[in-house]
């Protein structure tokens, strides 16, 4: 290819590409734009979008699985055991609730929206909703408190637990004391039927073991 051919070929291709490019941009001048005027118009989220967490606290059995599954440790749960005489009811999935949940905090600022906490929940009470507009002015407003127990109820539950623990401890202490008395008597005496007919067996008299 001679230099002249290359030279004119370059000029021709330059002009052609400019013309083609300008035709495309001109066409795009009249295509409708793809911008939507948020916040008047909002895009619809997909069905399984992973946005803000929601906890249905009535279904929570306090198993702590979600807190353990969270990779950034944004869920913190406290539980209080309930005593056998309390009836906390059942969840909507049929699980019997045995633990009070006085504290169920999710720091939504730490949450990485991975959804790992949703699967381990036995009652499906923690879900990811499609809410994405939840900014706050104060960072501490981003710690969501899901528990609905009032301080009075919490005190009551703790008191009940303490009482039942104390009773159990007392019972245990009494049983331990009673058990301590048994080995001091040596082998347990076999009750002998006396010939004098029907007198109750005498309690064994303490004697020193040989």
């Amino acid at each position: 290819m001679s230099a002249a051919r290359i030279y004119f070929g370059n000029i021709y291709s330059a002009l052609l590409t400019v013309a083609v490019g300008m035709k495309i941009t001109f066409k795009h001048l009249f295509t409708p734009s793809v911008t939507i005027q948020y916040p008047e118009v909002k895009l619809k989220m997909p069905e399984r979008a992973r946005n803000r967490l929601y906890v249905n606290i009535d279904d929570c059995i306090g198993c702590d699985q979600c807190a353990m599954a969270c990779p950034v440790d944004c869920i913190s749960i406290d539980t209080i055991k309930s005593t056998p005489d309390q009836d906390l009811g059942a969840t909507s999935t049929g699980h019997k609730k045995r633990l009070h949940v006085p504290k169920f905090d999710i720091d939504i600022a730490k949450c990485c929206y991975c959804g790992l906490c949703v699967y381990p929940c036995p009652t499906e009470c923690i879900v990811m909703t499609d809410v994405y507009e939840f900014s706050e002015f104060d960072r501490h407003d981003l710690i969501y408190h899901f528990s609905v127990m009032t301080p009075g109820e919490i005190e009551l539950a703790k008191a009940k637990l303490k009482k039942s623990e104390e009773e159990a401890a007392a019972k245990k202490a009494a049983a331990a004391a009673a058990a301590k008395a048994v080995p001091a008597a040596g082998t347990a005496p076999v009750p002998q039927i006396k010939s004098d007919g029907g007198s109750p067996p005498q309690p064994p008299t303490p004697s020193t073991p040989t």
Partner: protein
Amino acid sequence: MDAIQNLGVWGSILIAVLLSAIPIVFILLYALVTLYMEMKVAAHMQDRVAYMRTGWHGVLQPFADILKLLQKEDIISRQADRALFILSPYVVFIGTYAGFAAIPFSSIYIGSNINLGAFFIVAASSLVVIGILMGGWASNNKWSIFGAMRSAAQMISYEIPTALAILVAVMITGSLNLQDVTRFQEGGIQNWLLFGGPLPLMQKILIIPFTLITFLILFIASLAEVNRTPFDLPEAESELVQGFNTEYSGMRFAMFYLAEYANMFLVSGVAVALFLGGWSSPFGSFLSGPIWGIFWFIGKGMALVFLQIWIRWTLPRLRVDQLMYTSWKVLTPFLFVCIIAVGLILVL
């Protein structure tokens, strides 16, 4: 003229000042419109909308931009050369504004009816090169000086195609006075120099390819004069921040910006006056007259400005060596051929 002389010295000075202030009013209004047009055209070419919140569809946005620039802090770095730094936006603007003196807005209004109109415009817009070099040097910033030197090289090398293209038009009409050139093209679209001018048919047919090429080259060279894409290496926004503009803030930057838009209209105005019939109506005598002339001139000027905006959002930037190659090895030889051809056709 007699009325002006009767007013005495101060009166005539006042009249002169008022007449020369008309282009600056025009430039300010035109800058607002062009700012809005640029952002809207740019947005729609990219399938998006531009500002929608300031006023209906963003019409108040240029005012907001200017207010923002006005209230910014005026920062001059300590190592900067103060005198040159402060002076350079004004030199750039003066170079551009001086060119407006010789543009015929209408048959009744031309800032200054110089017989060397086109030559004066080319000379006055060379002041812009000095202003840019001053700005880049005085900023005491490596990127600014790169931008300034590239800009100087670019503008000087593209002044040659500009001048030669103007020469072609002048050859056909025989006068450098832009008002005369425009009057030469009166009478309708077939008389525009773009289509050969009011010449006998045989000459006209022979000359049309050369005038078309010349107009195209004039347009490309004027893009380079204004530092617009694809020749905007001096303000290569992704490479040099803003080139020589980097250290300027607030009102000084606004001055550079205004000078750039004014320059856009200046070179469009020159191309319109020389090749597209200036203020004459394309329909001949229909819709022509002094006031209609202003409308036609500004309309054609804005059409060329739209073309410049359109090209800006289509093409990527040229490298500096491609830029130089285009000017010296493509545009100038083609123009030499055009000059010789047009000269021969006119003579024979």
